[in-house]
């Protein structure tokens, strides 16, 4: 299973969960990630619903120019 947290300009985040997990499991993982961010002092002020991608949730698309930092 893989979790991607995309950090966007202006303090915005999008959290993607992928892999052999159910939507319910993905929802729980997302909540765990959000709880960890809050526990680390990152006060999340807005959280949208956990959306199923197949339902057409609007989200960012990664374009070219990927630079991997080791």
């Amino acid at each position: 299973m893989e979790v991607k947290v995309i950090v966007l300009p202006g303090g915005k985040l999008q959290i993607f969960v992928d892999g052999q997990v159910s939507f319910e499991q993905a929802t729980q993982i997302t909540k765990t990630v959000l709880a960890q961010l809050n526990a680390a002092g990152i006060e999340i002020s807005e959280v949208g619903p956990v959306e199923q991608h197949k339902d057409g949730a609007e989200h960012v698309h990664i374009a070219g120019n990927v630079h991997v930092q080791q």
Partner: protein
Amino acid sequence: MPCNLAVSITKAAVTEERLLALLTPEAVQPVVEAYLRQPGVLKPGESFNVNRQGNRLMIMVGSLRLFIERGRVSTYATQGYNDVRGEELVSALSNLLALAADALFAQQVKAALAPFGKVAQQQVMVDNGGVTQAATVLTLKF
């Protein structure tokens, strides 16, 4: 991750105030100094000096005085400089600070995710509702 593989997607955000709070004088000073040292940023004959004054930075560019406090840039023009140069520097430093805040926030999120294991980081360009933006992708594998 190609988005067609995602099981779920969730959006979240912190307040602008929270983001700007990352721009402490300690964090901002080296960023501003590195920027002002870049060729072409200062006009011929200009020099700069950056000093911390409590919770703010004071930047002297020639006889022009600029202040940065909680991510906000202001200026106090003195003789020999016009408003245009002051506005030019305020605009440039404001843009710089916005980028710095985004970078600091990404590092803060990365550090917060570390207890889950190794966090891979990628700098990418994203299409966000038709707007191309720079973004940081943090990946965790469980």
